[in-house]
Protein backbone atom coordinates (compact mmCIF):
# COMPACT_ATOMS: atom_id res chain seq x y z
CA UNK A 1 0.00 0.00 0.00
CA UNK A 2 1.55 3.36 -0.98
CA UNK A 3 2.38 5.83 1.80
CA UNK A 4 1.12 9.28 0.81
CA UNK A 5 0.34 12.75 2.01
CA UNK A 6 -2.99 13.80 0.51
CA UNK A 7 -4.76 16.90 -0.69
CA UNK A 8 -8.54 17.20 -0.86
CA UNK A 9 -8.43 16.43 -4.58
CA UNK A 10 -6.39 13.32 -4.00
CA UNK A 11 -8.77 12.14 -1.29
CA UNK A 12 -11.72 12.77 -3.61
CA UNK A 13 -10.06 10.69 -6.31
CA UNK A 14 -9.45 7.86 -3.83
CA UNK A 15 -13.06 8.05 -2.66
CA UNK A 16 -14.29 7.93 -6.26
CA UNK A 17 -12.20 4.84 -6.95
CA UNK A 18 -13.59 3.28 -3.77
CA UNK A 19 -17.15 4.10 -4.87
CA UNK A 20 -16.47 2.33 -8.18
CA UNK A 21 -15.18 -0.73 -6.30
CA UNK A 22 -18.30 -0.72 -4.10
CA UNK A 23 -20.46 -0.68 -7.22
CA UNK A 24 -18.49 -3.57 -8.71
CA UNK A 25 -18.83 -5.67 -5.55
CA UNK A 26 -22.60 -5.10 -5.64
CA UNK A 27 -22.88 -5.68 -9.38
CA UNK A 28 -21.00 -8.96 -9.35
CA UNK A 29 -23.50 -10.19 -6.78
CA UNK A 30 -26.21 -9.59 -9.37
CA UNK A 31 -24.24 -10.99 -12.30
CA UNK A 32 -22.94 -14.04 -10.46
CA UNK A 33 -26.44 -15.18 -9.58
CA UNK A 34 -27.32 -15.41 -13.29
CA UNK A 35 -24.13 -17.17 -14.41
CA UNK A 36 -23.13 -20.81 -14.20
CA UNK A 37 -20.12 -23.04 -14.66
CA UNK A 38 -16.86 -21.38 -15.66
CA UNK A 39 -18.48 -17.96 -15.97
CA UNK A 40 -19.78 -18.14 -12.42
CA UNK A 41 -16.36 -19.25 -11.17
CA UNK A 42 -14.77 -16.31 -12.98
CA UNK A 43 -17.36 -13.94 -11.55
CA UNK A 44 -16.54 -15.22 -8.07
CA UNK A 45 -12.82 -14.68 -8.62
CA UNK A 46 -13.41 -11.18 -9.96
CA UNK A 47 -15.81 -10.36 -7.12
CA UNK A 48 -13.12 -11.34 -4.62
CA UNK A 49 -10.55 -9.19 -6.46
CA UNK A 50 -12.87 -6.19 -6.12
CA UNK A 51 -13.38 -6.87 -2.43
CA UNK A 52 -9.62 -6.87 -1.92
CA UNK A 53 -9.20 -3.67 -3.93
CA UNK A 54 -12.03 -2.06 -1.96
CA UNK A 55 -10.34 -2.98 1.32
CA UNK A 56 -7.03 -1.57 0.10
CA UNK A 57 -8.63 1.74 -0.83
CA UNK A 58 -10.53 1.88 2.46
CA UNK A 59 -7.29 1.36 4.39
CA UNK A 60 -5.51 4.05 2.37
CA UNK A 61 -8.28 6.55 3.07
CA UNK A 62 -8.38 5.72 6.78
CA UNK A 63 -4.63 6.12 6.97
CA UNK A 64 -5.06 9.62 5.58
CA UNK A 65 -7.44 10.44 8.43
CA UNK A 66 -10.62 10.46 6.36
CA UNK A 67 -13.76 8.35 6.48
CA UNK A 68 -14.10 5.99 3.52
CA UNK A 69 -17.25 6.42 1.48
CA UNK A 70 -19.75 3.68 2.29
CA UNK A 71 -21.43 1.39 -0.20
CA UNK A 72 -24.93 2.34 -1.24
CA UNK A 73 -27.79 0.10 -0.18
CA UNK A 74 -28.58 -0.49 -3.85
CA UNK A 75 -27.36 0.54 -7.27
CA UNK A 76 -29.11 1.40 -10.51
CA UNK A 77 -27.94 -1.13 -13.08
CA UNK A 78 -27.01 0.38 -16.46
CA UNK A 79 -29.47 -1.93 -18.29
CA UNK A 80 -31.85 -4.77 -17.40
CA UNK A 81 -29.94 -7.87 -16.28
CA UNK A 82 -32.09 -10.96 -16.62
CA UNK A 83 -29.93 -13.70 -18.11
CA UNK A 84 -26.37 -14.94 -18.54
CA UNK A 85 -25.78 -12.81 -21.61
CA UNK A 86 -26.76 -9.57 -19.90
CA UNK A 87 -24.87 -10.67 -16.77
CA UNK A 88 -21.67 -10.93 -18.81
CA UNK A 89 -22.37 -7.50 -20.28
CA UNK A 90 -22.87 -6.17 -16.77
CA UNK A 91 -19.55 -7.63 -15.62
CA UNK A 92 -17.78 -5.90 -18.51
CA UNK A 93 -19.55 -2.62 -17.68
CA UNK A 94 -18.56 -2.92 -14.02
CA UNK A 95 -14.93 -3.40 -14.98
CA UNK A 96 -15.11 -0.41 -17.32
CA UNK A 97 -16.46 1.66 -14.43
CA UNK A 98 -13.68 0.60 -12.09
CA UNK A 99 -11.03 1.30 -14.74
CA UNK A 100 -12.51 4.77 -15.13
CA UNK A 101 -12.55 5.21 -11.37
CA UNK A 102 -8.82 4.61 -11.14
CA UNK A 103 -8.14 6.88 -14.11
CA UNK A 104 -9.18 9.79 -11.87
CA UNK A 105 -6.23 8.99 -9.59
CA UNK A 106 -3.86 9.29 -12.54
CA UNK A 107 -4.77 12.98 -12.83
CA UNK A 108 -3.45 13.89 -9.37
CA UNK A 109 -0.01 15.42 -9.02
CA UNK A 110 1.18 13.05 -6.29
CA UNK A 111 3.41 10.65 -8.21
CA UNK A 112 2.90 7.71 -5.86
CA UNK A 113 -0.88 7.94 -6.16
CA UNK A 114 -0.65 8.56 -9.90
CA UNK A 115 1.37 5.39 -10.40
CA UNK A 116 -0.90 3.46 -8.04
CA UNK A 117 -3.92 4.54 -10.10
CA UNK A 118 -2.32 3.66 -13.43
CA UNK A 119 -1.28 0.21 -12.24
CA UNK A 120 -4.68 -0.38 -10.65
CA UNK A 121 -6.31 0.25 -14.05
CA UNK A 122 -4.65 -2.80 -15.60
CA UNK A 123 -6.52 -5.68 -13.90
CA UNK A 124 -10.05 -4.29 -14.49
CA UNK A 125 -9.16 -3.38 -18.08
CA UNK A 126 -8.07 -6.99 -18.67
CA UNK A 127 -11.13 -8.41 -16.92
CA UNK A 128 -13.40 -6.22 -19.06
CA UNK A 129 -11.79 -7.72 -22.18
CA UNK A 130 -12.27 -11.22 -20.81
CA UNK A 131 -15.99 -10.58 -20.29
CA UNK A 132 -16.53 -8.64 -23.51
CA UNK A 133 -14.33 -10.77 -25.73
CA UNK A 134 -12.86 -7.71 -27.43
CA UNK A 135 -10.59 -4.80 -26.62
CA UNK A 136 -11.19 -1.04 -26.59
CA UNK A 137 -8.68 1.61 -27.63
CA UNK A 138 -8.92 3.72 -24.49
CA UNK A 139 -9.83 1.77 -21.33
CA UNK A 140 -11.31 4.02 -18.65
CA UNK A 141 -11.45 6.96 -21.03
CA UNK A 142 -14.73 6.65 -22.93
CA UNK A 143 -14.58 10.21 -24.24
CA UNK A 144 -11.46 9.38 -26.26
CA UNK A 145 -13.00 6.38 -28.05
Amino acid sequence: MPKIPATIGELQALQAALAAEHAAVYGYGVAGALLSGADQARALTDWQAHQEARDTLRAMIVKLGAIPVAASAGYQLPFPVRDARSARRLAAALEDGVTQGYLGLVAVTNQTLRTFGALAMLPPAKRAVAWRGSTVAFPGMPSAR
Partner: protein
Amino acid sequence: MLAASTTTLPLFLALSACAGPNPLAGPPPLSADVRALLRAVAAEQNLISLYNRTMAAYSALVPALTPLLAEHQAHLAQLRARIIEPPGKSVPGKVTSKPAIPGTQAAALAQLRTAEQAASTAQLQRLATASPSLAQLYASIAASEATHVTMLDVRSSR
Protein backbone atom coordinates in the same frame (compact mmCIF):
# COMPACT_ATOMS: atom_id res chain seq x y z
CA MET B 1 -18.44 6.63 -11.40
CA LEU B 2 -15.75 9.21 -11.51
CA ALA B 3 -15.68 11.14 -14.74
CA ALA B 4 -12.14 11.24 -16.00
CA SER B 5 -10.63 14.62 -16.66
CA THR B 6 -10.44 14.82 -20.41
CA THR B 7 -9.33 18.37 -20.83
CA THR B 8 -7.10 18.44 -23.80
CA LEU B 9 -4.00 20.50 -23.31
CA PRO B 10 -2.02 20.34 -26.52
CA LEU B 11 1.68 20.65 -26.06
CA PHE B 12 3.48 23.07 -28.29
CA LEU B 13 6.46 21.92 -30.21
CA ALA B 14 8.93 24.64 -29.38
CA LEU B 15 10.15 24.94 -32.93
CA SER B 16 8.68 28.23 -34.06
CA ALA B 17 10.06 31.70 -33.68
CA CYS B 18 8.08 32.37 -30.56
CA ALA B 19 8.89 35.14 -28.10
CA GLY B 20 12.42 35.03 -26.80
CA PRO B 21 15.34 37.27 -26.18
CA ASN B 22 17.19 36.36 -29.35
CA PRO B 23 15.19 35.01 -32.29
CA LEU B 24 18.40 34.26 -34.19
CA ALA B 25 19.66 31.92 -31.48
CA GLY B 26 17.52 29.07 -32.81
CA PRO B 27 14.58 27.28 -31.24
CA PRO B 28 14.58 26.72 -27.48
CA PRO B 29 15.12 23.13 -26.32
CA LEU B 30 12.10 20.89 -26.09
CA SER B 31 10.66 20.46 -22.61
CA ALA B 32 10.70 17.05 -20.90
CA ASP B 33 6.97 16.51 -21.44
CA VAL B 34 7.19 17.32 -25.16
CA ARG B 35 10.17 14.99 -25.56
CA ALA B 36 8.21 12.24 -23.78
CA LEU B 37 5.24 12.86 -26.05
CA LEU B 38 7.40 12.65 -29.17
CA ARG B 39 8.85 9.37 -27.89
CA ALA B 40 5.32 8.06 -27.35
CA VAL B 41 4.41 9.02 -30.92
CA ALA B 42 7.52 7.27 -32.25
CA ALA B 43 6.76 4.15 -30.20
CA GLU B 44 3.21 3.96 -31.63
CA GLN B 45 4.56 4.38 -35.16
CA ASN B 46 6.99 1.54 -34.55
CA LEU B 47 4.24 -0.72 -33.21
CA ILE B 48 1.98 0.07 -36.17
CA SER B 49 4.83 -0.79 -38.53
CA LEU B 50 5.44 -4.07 -36.70
CA TYR B 51 1.74 -5.01 -36.93
CA ASN B 52 1.60 -4.14 -40.62
CA ARG B 53 4.71 -6.15 -41.46
CA THR B 54 3.57 -9.12 -39.33
CA MET B 55 0.18 -9.15 -41.05
CA ALA B 56 1.87 -8.94 -44.46
CA ALA B 57 4.01 -11.96 -43.58
CA TYR B 58 1.22 -14.07 -42.00
CA SER B 59 -2.15 -13.43 -43.61
CA ALA B 60 -3.85 -15.92 -41.27
CA LEU B 61 -3.24 -13.45 -38.44
CA VAL B 62 -5.00 -10.55 -40.19
CA PRO B 63 -8.47 -11.10 -38.64
CA ALA B 64 -7.06 -11.29 -35.11
CA LEU B 65 -4.57 -8.45 -35.45
CA THR B 66 -6.65 -5.92 -37.40
CA PRO B 67 -8.63 -4.69 -34.34
CA LEU B 68 -5.44 -4.29 -32.32
CA LEU B 69 -3.78 -2.38 -35.14
CA ALA B 70 -6.82 -0.09 -35.37
CA GLU B 71 -6.47 0.70 -31.68
CA HIS B 72 -2.82 1.62 -32.11
CA GLN B 73 -3.81 3.92 -34.94
CA ALA B 74 -6.33 5.53 -32.57
CA HIS B 75 -3.60 5.89 -29.92
CA LEU B 76 -1.33 7.56 -32.45
CA ALA B 77 -4.07 9.97 -33.51
CA GLN B 78 -4.75 10.96 -29.88
CA LEU B 79 -1.07 11.42 -29.11
CA ARG B 80 -0.46 13.48 -32.23
CA ALA B 81 -3.50 15.61 -31.42
CA ARG B 82 -1.71 16.75 -28.25
CA ILE B 83 1.01 18.38 -30.34
CA ILE B 84 0.50 21.64 -32.16
CA GLU B 85 2.78 21.78 -35.16
CA PRO B 86 3.99 25.21 -36.14
CA PRO B 87 3.50 26.16 -39.81
CA GLY B 88 6.09 24.48 -41.98
CA LYS B 89 7.07 21.97 -39.30
CA SER B 90 5.67 18.53 -38.62
CA VAL B 91 6.03 15.78 -36.07
CA PRO B 92 8.49 13.19 -37.37
CA GLY B 93 6.55 10.36 -38.98
CA LYS B 94 9.24 7.86 -39.76
CA VAL B 95 9.61 4.43 -38.18
CA THR B 96 12.71 4.31 -35.98
CA SER B 97 12.76 0.60 -35.18
CA LYS B 98 12.18 -2.13 -37.73
CA PRO B 99 12.99 -5.56 -36.32
CA ALA B 100 12.90 -8.53 -38.71
CA ILE B 101 9.71 -10.57 -38.75
CA PRO B 102 10.43 -14.05 -37.35
CA GLY B 103 10.23 -17.13 -39.55
CA THR B 104 7.28 -18.73 -37.79
CA GLN B 105 3.84 -17.41 -36.92
CA ALA B 106 4.25 -18.37 -33.28
CA ALA B 107 7.50 -16.44 -33.03
CA ALA B 108 5.94 -13.46 -34.79
CA LEU B 109 3.10 -13.42 -32.24
CA ALA B 110 5.63 -13.68 -29.43
CA GLN B 111 7.51 -10.70 -30.87
CA LEU B 112 4.30 -8.65 -30.96
CA ARG B 113 3.53 -9.66 -27.39
CA THR B 114 6.97 -8.55 -26.22
CA ALA B 115 6.59 -5.25 -28.07
CA GLU B 116 3.15 -4.62 -26.53
CA GLN B 117 4.43 -5.37 -23.02
CA ALA B 118 7.40 -3.05 -23.48
CA ALA B 119 5.16 -0.32 -24.88
CA SER B 120 2.78 -0.58 -21.92
CA THR B 121 5.65 -0.34 -19.45
CA ALA B 122 7.10 2.66 -21.30
CA GLN B 123 3.76 4.50 -21.17
CA LEU B 124 3.69 4.09 -17.38
CA GLN B 125 7.22 5.47 -17.14
CA ARG B 126 6.05 8.65 -18.94
CA LEU B 127 3.56 9.51 -16.19
CA ALA B 128 6.03 11.42 -14.02
CA THR B 129 6.62 14.34 -16.37
CA ALA B 130 3.15 14.48 -17.88
CA SER B 131 0.33 16.95 -17.31
CA PRO B 132 -2.74 15.39 -15.63
CA SER B 133 -4.59 15.12 -18.94
CA LEU B 134 -1.65 13.59 -20.78
CA ALA B 135 -0.92 11.25 -17.86
CA GLN B 136 -4.46 9.91 -18.18
CA LEU B 137 -3.95 9.33 -21.89
CA TYR B 138 -0.67 7.47 -21.25
CA ALA B 139 -2.31 5.36 -18.52
CA SER B 140 -5.25 4.49 -20.76
CA ILE B 141 -2.95 3.53 -23.63
CA ALA B 142 -0.84 1.47 -21.21
CA ALA B 143 -3.97 -0.39 -20.13
CA SER B 144 -4.98 -0.91 -23.76
CA GLU B 145 -1.57 -2.35 -24.58
CA ALA B 146 -1.78 -4.61 -21.53
CA THR B 147 -5.07 -5.97 -22.87
CA HIS B 148 -3.38 -6.56 -26.23
CA VAL B 149 -0.83 -8.76 -24.44
CA THR B 150 -3.72 -10.80 -23.07
CA MET B 151 -5.35 -11.10 -26.50
CA LEU B 152 -2.05 -12.17 -28.09
CA ASP B 153 -1.61 -14.78 -25.35
CA VAL B 154 -5.07 -16.16 -26.14
CA ARG B 155 -4.24 -16.24 -29.86
CA SER B 156 -0.90 -17.96 -29.19
CA SER B 157 -2.53 -20.69 -27.11
CA ARG B 158 -4.85 -21.77 -29.95
